[in-house]
């Protein structure tokens, strides 16, 4: 019925008097990487867990891959064949090796990926025979991702996937996600890291206090593309600063005035983080 991978209309979820999710509408297309941003307690995880079928909702319409995750009935297992879930912090399978764990989970699915190629894809080849409890935080997380994708999911949920990664591991992880996208996997990502959303996501939604503030591409969120650029440079021994909608022209003017090279020139667009902090700040 629905042409979207995920479709949410008027979703609500209350805990007692507290509205954790307060009327969310959202469509995620097939093949898209969609990021949900928001401060802690904004309702991100509640929303995602409703989509994953872990929680009941109080109101609204939800379809995920054409099914209602709150009312799957006999379709529960065939639906779970088609989704992959990477949870926040887990510490299971401690006494198994990476290879044993991935091979075991592959048996749950009718059309799994090749476990050995998943081990290679997630960069765990060197650790394949190590017990899981000996893995570093980043390796552990890559195992979580390996278990999330082993069943060749059409839709992958990633809940704060790179928390605790060093910068290099994060880059490697982003490459992995881009590979999955090329294979046609739809990805719903929640993250605290705005650079991650910017690097990966086609679109982002900002959720604050259970409501969606805005959905747009990372480039245009909060009218970022229209925001003034800040130009800073050194002139006459002094730090100078200028806000402008026309930075190229301004820089040319300054260069002409100074006869060529402009010392310590910087042209800074507001980062996604600046825009985001302004957005969630305004709502408080």
């Amino acid at each position: 019925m629905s042409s979207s991978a995920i479709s949410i209309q008027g979703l609500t979820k209350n805990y007692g008097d507290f509205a954790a999710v307060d009327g969310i509408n959202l469509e995620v297309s097939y093949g898209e990487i969609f990021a949900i941003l928001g401060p802690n307690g904004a309702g991100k995880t509640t929303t995602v867990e409703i989509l994953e079928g872990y929680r009941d909702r109080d109101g609204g319409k939800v379809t995920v891959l054409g099914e209602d995750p709150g009312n799957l009935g006999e379709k529960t297992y065939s639906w779970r064949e088609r989704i992959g879930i990477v949870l926040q912090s887990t510490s299971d399978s401690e006494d198994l090796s990476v290879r044993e764990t991935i091979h075991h989970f592959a048996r749950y699915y009718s059309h799994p990926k090749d476990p050995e190629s998943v081990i290679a894809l997630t960069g765990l080849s060197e650790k394949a025979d190590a017990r899981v409890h000996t893995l570093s935080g980043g390796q552990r997380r890559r195992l979580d991702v390996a278990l999330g994708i082993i069943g060749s999911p059409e839709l992958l949920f990633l809940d704060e996937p790179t928390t605790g990664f060093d910068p290099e591991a994060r880059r490697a992880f982003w490459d992995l996600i881009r590979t999955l996208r090329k294979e046609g996997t739809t990805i719903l990502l929640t993250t605290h890291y705005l650079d991650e959303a910017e690097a990966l996501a086609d679109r982002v939604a900002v959720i604050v206090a259970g409501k969606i503030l805005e959905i747009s591409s990372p480039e245009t969120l909060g009218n970022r593309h229209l925001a003034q650029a800040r130009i800073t440079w050194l002139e006459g021994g002094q730090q100078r600063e200028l806000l402008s909608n026309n930075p190229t022209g301004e820089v040319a003017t300054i260069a002409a005035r100074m006869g060529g090279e402009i010392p310590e020139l910087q042209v800074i667009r507001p980062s996604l983080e600046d825009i985001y902090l302004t957005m969630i700040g305004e709502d408080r």
Partner: protein
Amino acid sequence: MNILRLGFLRGALEIKQFLRQRESVVFTILFPVMLLFIFGSVFKNTIAPGVKFSQYFVAGMIASGLVNSGFQQLAIMIPIERDAGTLKRLRGTPMSPASYFIGKAILVTASTVIQIALLMGIGIAMFGLHAPSSPEKWIRFLWLIIIGSTCTTALGIAFSAVPKNGRGASAVVSPIVIILQFFSGVFFVFTQLPKWMQEFAAIFPLKWLTQGMRSVFLPDSFVHQEVAKSWEIGRTALVLLIWTVIGILFSIKKFKWTNR
């Protein structure tokens, strides 16, 4: 049948993980063996014609083995798995919960068989225990293991919903088992316990399991030393069946996949 196939696969995995955890091997397998050595070596008195306390004690410990492997092991292990996210992760895969429980049942069976074999072997070799003396007693022994194990497994899964988290599980579960062992004729001769203690113990499965195991391992003449002057085989089966049904109903109603 996919559920069964994955259940066996999980069972193999459970056993592999079990054997790799030194704590669980020590706690579930070696601890009862150590207790057997200590009690068997200290109390050598004769409690009835031809029956020493050590024989009585081994029969009780074999019954306890069913409670340790089923109830105690699962009621501690499942909350730890819930904390670790194991259950939540499994819930997100196409594996049926039935396969998970089949896997647990296989684990319980394996650790029960190992434990009973060890206790019986040591009991026979060192503490004057006699193997069941007739085919009839062997059959009774087997069905006591099967129904007893099923019962304590169901109760272990049901009780796993009680501990709030994995860390506290052992502190909630172990005292229950130890107290029941004191009340049910494992550490003391049942008939020497106060009446109220006997009546309290008779509500729970362990008392019936110990009595059943005595009927298998002690001479027939010992039946006159029992409270009822009878082995009460039918009543034992009935009590175990009732607790099995209670365990299954609670498991279905109350099983928790996450800590929330």
